[in-house]
């Protein structure tokens, strides 16, 4: 397992696999009728879906590392996060180019007036600094702690993405709620992990603490 995870080829495979959805969509553009009656909407929904999926996959790396005891999974996190950003960029460009036909006045009006666009746009904009600072150089420049703090913005982007979808649908909210459930579990695990940390301290520390409090009580 470990040798598979650490192999440089695995990264190439994950990279190519992540490009498959985009490849299939580009292929379908050239097959008449493959994108259905409303091709722009199909492409917008597909790229939106893949953004949310890659956000969920990226957010599942940390839990999986701990639960499966496979710390090597970290090798894929940056790439998967950048793919979430890649599909978000595609989604945004389709909206700007095909839906709004480069009417920047209309786009700004949409962002200001329509809450589902406002929240979706916010989630997207928050991903930009994360994509820029995803390099090793930026981690060094910012320092690990500050870099980690900044990159927690992905939690906001994921939640914003789900709300964006939920507010978009007319009446059938099943699919947005499924995404909401997945993202909630992934974020809840982090809360659980964070709160349960003190209890998972090594035993010597614990007994030392107990001794301390015992002596404090005796005094």
């Amino acid at each position, binding site marked *: 397992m470990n040798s598979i995870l650490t192999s440089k080829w695995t990264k190439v495979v994950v990279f190519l696999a992540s490009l498959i959805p985009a490849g299939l969509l580009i292929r379908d553009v050239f097959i008449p009728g493959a994108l*259905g009656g409303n091709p722009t909407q199909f492409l917008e929904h597909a790229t939106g879906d893949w953004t949310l999926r890659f956000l969920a996959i990226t957010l599942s790396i940390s839990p999986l590392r701990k639960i499966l005891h496979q710390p090597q999974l970290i090798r894929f996190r940056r790439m998967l996060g950048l793919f979430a950003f890649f599909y978000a960029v595609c989604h945004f460009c389709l909206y700007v180019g095909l839906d709004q*036909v480069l009417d920047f006045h209309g786009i700004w009006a949409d962002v200001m007036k329509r809450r589902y666009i406002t929240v979706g746009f916010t989630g997207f904009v928050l991903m930009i600094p994360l994509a820029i600072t995803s390099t090793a150089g930026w981690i060094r420049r910012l320092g690990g702690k500050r870099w980690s703090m900044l990159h927690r913005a992905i939690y906001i982007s994921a939640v914003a993405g789900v709300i964006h979808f939920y507010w978009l649908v007319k*009446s*059938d*909210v099943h699919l947005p709620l499924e995404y909401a459930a997945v993202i909630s579990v992934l974020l809840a695990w982090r809360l659980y992990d964070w709160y349960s940390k003190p209890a998972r301290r090594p035993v010597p520390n614990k007994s030392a603490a107990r001794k301390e409090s015992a002596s404090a009580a005796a005094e």
Partner: protein
Amino acid sequence: MLVKRSQDLKYSEITPHDIYLNRRKFLYGMGLAGGLGMVGKNLVDLVNPSIRAYASTKLQTVPSSFSTTETVTPAQVATTYNNYYEFGTDKQDPAKNAQKFVTSPWSVSVEGEVAKPRKFTMDEILKLSPLEERIYRHRCVEAWSIVVPWIGYSFSALAKLVEPTSNAKYVAFESYFDKKQMPLWSEAGIQLPYVEGLRLDEAMHPLALLCVGMYGETLPNQDGAPVRMVVPWKYGFKSIKSLVKIRFVKDQPPTTWNITNAHEYGFYSNVNPTVDHPRWSQAREVRLPGYFKNTKTQMFNGYGDQVASLYSGMDLKKNY
């Protein structure tokens, strides 16, 4: 009041719709081709279940002066990209899930504030008035549009037969609803059966179409078979599908999308580029199957010359 007896039943009402339609198709093919080869082909059609599922029959029509000369949308688009929530909320769902929908026998009950309430069988509806082909623009509230060659006649032709009384101010329409045939109904997120309504003068306007077909044939199930309304100056959801009940009433009737979200969908729902949907602009539309939302939406979907007078003196921003 016409009470229906079993002797009144017509052949079309007791034969399953698909087979019935294929019988017609079969006869039509024979009459047209007369050749053995054509008969053979239609015999194959008759026993091939996959063809039977998409059964439809040709309708003879006369042209209409209401038709637009704009390019007609490919039938493939208009029959695979549908909003018919009873059969699923994805646009491609109805084309898949409505194929087994039984639309024969079928009748439409017309009641309420009328002198002569009665039921119309599909046979009666098909023969009530000469069938016209009307090529209308169809603008969905979701900012896409298509151009469809509908088949039918003005709703007023049917309405006149039941003689609405002076109490009739509105017309309430109701769709067929059957949980067994529409197992996805619970996921629709809207109250069913689907109901719609028009003011009496709107319903009696000659543009308001009682529609039984499209693209030269009877309506496919996903497009609202066997009979529906088409109100071309209003957003698509006002054009109710698979009609079973028409009531002439005194008061403004409830309408499905208004019940679902009154803030977003008004009773009138006239196509209006100056009144945005709260979640998107209505100024432009994408003409399917195109990619760019660059077609300017017209007031009353371009039917203002005919219908604007219905709303003179009304604030259409308030009465959206």
